[in-house]
Every structure is written in structure tokens, then in C-alpha cells.
């Protein structure tokens, strides 16, 4: 039932956006900006670029809504991710590099903040350590693998949504996630052996 209500709200938002309703767009921005930012950040690896790209993505989305029909868009989330993917592709093309992320997700000038949720210092330390490992190894994955891992495990997208965004079948996405996770695990274990 909750899922049905969520879908109804999503369709309603899409219909309102189709009518160029500005307030609805701002609400969409507030709801999705962090998620899209995370997606971009893990794809490009730099905070500054992630900021610029996120801003561009929402502007592009606004322009897309005003100039195109949203009939084909199944969900608003999928639409935002599709625009984000295209924006990242454009970014790489303009920068003249195939993949900007080659070493690590962030540099030391911008350490990532881990928001304290549990108020448990030990748990926070563990989480920070785990995140460090992921941050270090995620850029080494194939672009396709990295993308599904970000969408599935970091941003909690459903298989249907990932399939809609990537243009693959649900089964293909499931296989891709499995392979990506194993590839990441292999990279992390390889690192441990070296140590």
C-alpha cells in the first residue's frame, strides 16, 4: 500500500512538473539533491566538480521538463538519474578524458565527513574505516560496475529503477550487481594481502 501511495505521489509530481509548476520543482530539488550529488561524486571523484555537475543536472532537468513531454518517464527518480548520466558523459567529453576517476575518490584537502548518527565513537570509526576502503577501491572498478554499485548500495535504488535508468533488463541488472560486488570484494581482498 505504501508503495502504491509512493507511486501515486510520483506520478502526481511528474504531472505537475509537466505543467511547469515551479514550487513542485523546488520540492523535487530538495528531495533529490543529496542523492544526485552522491551519485555524481562517486562517479567523478571530486567535490567541486560534483557540485557544479549537480547544479547543471537540475537546470537541465528543468529545461527538459519545459521542452519535452514526460509521457515516457516512468518515475521522476529515473528521469533525474538519466539526465545525471548524460551530464556526466558530457562532462568527460568536454574534459577530454575518458574517465576522470583514476586513483581515489577524494583528495586530502577535502576529507569526507561521516555524519554521526549512532553517537557511538567505535561504530563511527568502523564506518569511516569501511568507507575509506570503499572510496579507495570503487574508482578502480569498471564504470558500469561502479554505477550499479552506487545506485544499488549507496543510493538504494530498486532493481526496476536501475533497469529503467540503464536500459537493461531486471535480470541483467541483477547479474551485473552480483559481478560488480564480487569484483569490488576481490579488489579489497587484494589490498589486504598487499598489506
Amino acid at each position, binding site marked *: 500500500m505504501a508503495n502504491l501511495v509512493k507511486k501515486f505521489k510520483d506520478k502526481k509530481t511528474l504531472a505537475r512538473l509537466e505543467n511547469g509548476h515551479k514550487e513542485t520543482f523546488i520540492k523535487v530539488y530538495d528531495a533529490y*539533491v543529496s542523492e544526485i550529488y552522491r551519485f555524481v561524486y*562517486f562517479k567523478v571523484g571530486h567535490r567541486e566538480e560534483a557540485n557544479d555537475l549537480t547544479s547543471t543536472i537540475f537546470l537541465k532537468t528543468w529545461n527538459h521538463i519545459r521542452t519535452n513531454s514526460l509521457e515516457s518517464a516512468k518515475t521522476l527518480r529515473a528521469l533525474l538519474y538519466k539526465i545525471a548520466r548524460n551530464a556526466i558523459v558530457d562532462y568527460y567529453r568536454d574534459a577530454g578524458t575518458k574517465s576522470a576517476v583514476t586513483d581515489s575518490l577524494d583528495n586530502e584537502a577535502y576529507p569526507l565527513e561521516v555524519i554521526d548518527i549512532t553517537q557511538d565513537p567505535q561504530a563511527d570509526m568502523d564506518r569511516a574505516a569501511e568507507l575509506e576502503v570503499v572510496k579507495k577501491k570503487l574508482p578502480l572498478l569498471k564504470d558500469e560496475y561502479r554505477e550499479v554499485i*552506487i545506485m544499488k548500495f*549507496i543510493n538504494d535504488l530498486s532493481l526496476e529503477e536501475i533497469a529503467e535508468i540503464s536500459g537493461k533488463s531486471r535480470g541483467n541488472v541483477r547479474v551485473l550487481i552480483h559481478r560488480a560486488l564480487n569484483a569490488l*570484494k576481490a579488489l579489497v581482498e587484494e589490498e589486504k594481502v598487499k598489506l
Partner: protein
Amino acid sequence: MTLKDLRAGLRAGKNIAPDKNWLKSDREFLLSEISQAPENLLSTRKNFFINLRSLVQVSLKPVYVLGAFILVLLGASLFSHQLFINAKPNDSLYIARIISERAKLNTIFNSIQRDKLAAQFANEHAQEITAVLADPNFNNEDNKDQVAKLSASFNSEIDTVKDRVNRLVKGAAVPTATVAAPASSVEGEVAIAESSVNNVGVEVFESPAAGESGSAGTGLSGLSPVAITTTNAETSATATSPEETAVSETATTTPAADTEKILDDAKKLFEQKDYSETLNKLKEVDALINQDALNQ
């Protein structure tokens, strides 16, 4: 590192968020950008259509449509009878009532209950036809054809009541027959008992009745540990005395005979156009149908 740890590490990535200052400035920038576009306010009517369209889009999935269809079907079969209960035989809605009654009958799986309800429905129809024909405003030369049709319907309804009452009586008689059946139909009864003589295994024994009739095999007791008791059909049938049978038959057939007689009387009275008496007779039938004796 296990996959679980890896997933936990990835989940920690959820805590990455954009800088608050940047977020604030970007929101303002976006607001200024979109404010350049012409204002597009949604009217109440448009809002309503948006909501309706969204609802249709979400609910137009085979599973929801099927669920709604089943719900409507069930609701119609269970409650439509109440909706059309006041429809009279000369009304256009009467056919809807008949259909809803049939639907209701089809949802009842207990045959006795179904027969009882069908008899009640048919009796009600007969009563309503009688009531309609008793009205001089309707029963005149102008409605000659309709009166003829209703008269034919009355006869068929009376036949239905008779048929259902007979089925009810037969249905009620079945349990009595099945109680007697094992003794009368089963040729032999196998019983296993521990030997009380030597406490080793079981022995084969014959009932005296079977021994008299000579139908059971002899000489098995020494060979097999299984005890066999054979009951002769004729012998066991004598357990019920003819008086008892007669009494039970009278008890089960009396309501049916009564009902049939009253229905025949009602039919005659109807032909004689004595509608008030016909109604009285049909009400008697109604009372009989509801009597427990008819159903047990």
C-alpha cells in the same frame, strides 16, 4: 572482508552529503533561474485532473484491475440481492433480482442450504406473482399477455419449490441411510485383536452370524495372526425393526408430502383466481421450508 562488511562499507557512503553553504547558494541560484520562466499556476480543476490521471496510471495494472473485478463480482453476488429485493415481477429490475439470486445461490456450496434458499426464492416469486395478479389495476384486459406470462411463471415457480423440497428431504434422508450402510453393505469386517489366550499376535475369529451363514473362510485362525469378522448383510439388517423404519420414513417424508399438498392446493386456488387464499397457502409453505424438520 565478507560481502556483508562490503555492503556495510558501501552503506556508509550514504552519509556523504553536499556542503550546506553550497546547497543554500545553489538552491537560490536555481530559484532565480526558474523564476525567469512564465508563472504557471495550477487551477483547482487542473489539480483534480492531475490527481485523477495519476490515480488511473497507478491503478491501471493487471493485478489491481483483477482485484477490483473480483471485489465487484463478490460484492455484486453478495449484496445485489438486497439492492433488488423490492423489485416486483412486473418491474424491469426484476430480471436483475433473478440474476443476483442465482449468483447468490452459486456462492453457496452446501447443497442443503442451496436447496432451501432456492425453494425460498421460488416461493417468494410465487407469492409476488400472486400479489401482482391480485391487483385489479394490473390484472385486466390491457395486460392480458403479461398476466398469461406471470401465470405460467407461477406454475414453474411452484414446480421449482416442489423439486427443491423433494431434494431437501432426500438430502436430509442421506445421513440416516449412511448410518445403516456399513452394516448392510459391507460384506466382511476385518478386526485386529490381541490374543487373550496366549498373548502372542492376534487371532482370526468369526462372528456367530457369519458362522451360521457359512460365508466366511474357515481354518484361518491357526495360520494367520489377523482376525477377521464377517457380518452377514441380511443378519445386520434385522437390527432395525420394520416399525422403526416406518416411523423414520414418516418423520422424513411428512413435511415434503405436506408441502406438496399445500402447493397443489395453492395451484388450484390460483387457477380459481382466489389470490388471497393462494398467498396464505404459500406462506404456509414458507413456514414449512423454514422448519427444521424439513432440513434434518
